[in-house]
């Protein structure tokens, strides 16, 4: 798609593009290229000699049981964050879409967590889940459930999942609400006249019509769970206990920053890049299909 009427200048557009292209090149392409290049190299223990080792870094990565653990943790974590954040948001959106008084007020009251940083959301949830100073954590220990997310891996995972999902609900809510409001009233009325019950109307009419939104949000939520939850994990559990909440992005950070293993952390970056590319590709296939509708 492009314009028919354009300006004839030749030099000016390059000038206009220069800032963005310069930044893109220096801070996107150069580092991404380096990550790919380094992922094929290995440094000796003293960082003096570097040799080309082909795919060895990748082979080693996928033979490392700890890395495979990270992959599994990331999948479990992402699944639950996405499922929780999307189902709660859909439920609330369906309710807020009913024409009741104060619908706008509810909307305002539900959208602000969008603005809260993942790390800050984590800090907020400390005061719910902390075994000594948290509302729920203290209560659980009071009734005899041994709750401490700093010691118990499963509890740690639950804690970071809830905090991460909480922050994402408002975003999903906005999109589900927009999606619901774009469903023509006449379609719903027709179903109602046919005598379909509200529940049946929802699953046979509303939910299928909402599927583009749902699918879009699925990709966005997975991306969020993969990458943007770093702050939640760092603030709450630091990947622990015993690496129970060490997702791929957290592990890549620890290997690069703490263990200074350039080859392995670059290989991990490349794996993550492939994950983003796959997710983006899926998203665009979907957008293209939507354009044809």
């Amino acid at each position, binding site marked *: 798609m492009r314009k028919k009427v354009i300006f004839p200048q030749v030099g000016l557009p390059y000038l206009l593009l220069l800032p963005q292209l310069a930044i893109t090149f220096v801070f996107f392409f150069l*580092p991404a290229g380096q990550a790919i290049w380094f992922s094929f190299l290995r440094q000796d223990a003293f960082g003096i000699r570097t040799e080309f080792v082909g795919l060895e870094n990748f082979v080693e990565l996928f033979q490392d049981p700890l890395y495979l653990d990270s992959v599994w943790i990331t999948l479990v974590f992402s699944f639950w964050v996405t499922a929780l954040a999307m189902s709660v948001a859909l439920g609330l959106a369906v309710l807020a879409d009913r024409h009741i008084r104060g619908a706008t007020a509810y909307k305002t009251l539900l959208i602000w967590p969008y603005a809260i940083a993942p790390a800050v959301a984590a800090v907020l949830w400390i005061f719910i889940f902390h075994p000594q100073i948290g509302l729920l954590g203290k209560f659980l220990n009071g009734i005899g459930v041994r709750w401490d997310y700093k010691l118990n891996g499963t509890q740690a995972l639950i804690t970071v999942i809830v905090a991460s999902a909480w922050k994402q609900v408002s975003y999903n809510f906005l999109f589900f609400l927009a999606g619901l409001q774009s469903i023509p009233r006449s379609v719903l009325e027709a179903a109602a006249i046919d005598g379909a019950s509200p529940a049946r109307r929802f699953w046979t009419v509303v939910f299928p019509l909402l599927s583009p939104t749902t699918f879009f949000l699925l990709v966005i939520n997975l991306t969020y769970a993969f990458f943007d939850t770093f702050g939640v994990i760092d603030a709450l559990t630091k990947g622990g206990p015993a690496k129970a909440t060490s997702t791929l992005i957290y592990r890549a950070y620890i290997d690069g920053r703490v263990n200074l293993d350039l080859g392995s952390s670059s290989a991990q970056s490349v794996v993550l890049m492939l994950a983003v590319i796959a997710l983006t590709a899926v998203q665009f296939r979907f957008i293209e299909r939507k354009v044809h509708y």
Partner: protein
Amino acid sequence: MMHGPVATIRAEAIARAEAAAERADTARRRADWLTHAVLILGVALFALPIWIVLMGSTHDVATVSRGEVPLLPGPYAVENYAAAWTEGSARTTRVPVSAMMLNSFVMAMLIAVGKIAISILSAYAVVFFSFPGRLLAFWAIFITLMLPVEVRIFPTFQVVSDLGLVNTYTGLILPLIASATATLLFRQFFLTIPDELVEAAKMDGAGPLRFFKDVVLPLSTTNIAALFVILFVYGWNQYLWPLLITTSADVETIVIGIVKMIGAEADTEWNRVMATTVLALLPPVAVVILMQRWFVKGLVETEK
């Protein structure tokens, strides 16, 4: 004469219809109440963590550390907020919250304004001109969608440190400033500007820069406002990149600062952490709520 059975049947039918309507009405009203109840519960559940922190920030450190989890305000509000603002956490980081807030504000503003500025210029170039390499430039920008800062974090750090930009605002902000999303949004919007407007401008002898300033920019204000909200929040909430690039308190942002304030939890001043948390989430929440109308529209449009 119509009285007799027919009239009775009619009266019965009317009565039945009225009863049915009433039943439907009661059912609807009951459903409405249920809807309100669930929504209020949802809102409360959402607000609970904030409420706890808000209330906790008005109590002294002993109350919070004992695990009393106060749900009502206490008498230490002014003291806690003042201490956090001017001193930060006395026992751990000792960086005043005011300084970190300023850093976060500068970062969020420069990221938002910078992204909007470079994106609107490049979108303008791609849409309103024809030049060799146009498609290549577009794809180069477009493909950055696939390279979020998280996946190229260490090589980017290497580049920034080679340029001597560690612990500077420039190093903090510049690598985050290229935005494919903003460029795509502006491009999409520019394509809807009618050709006649460009034609008219050309006939009036207005050059591309004049057309940009007098026509395109004013038409784009809604999009700019929406993007501003989204990008301000994005900038304010950055975590991984500032964590790597800032090692000195001079450029420390508030989101990083809170986590550092908690430290090892041995002698965390929880009340000050809570006050700091409230302060840290205020600016982005305020921006979202005050600019809600543009934000919602912009968000839904940007992503689609």
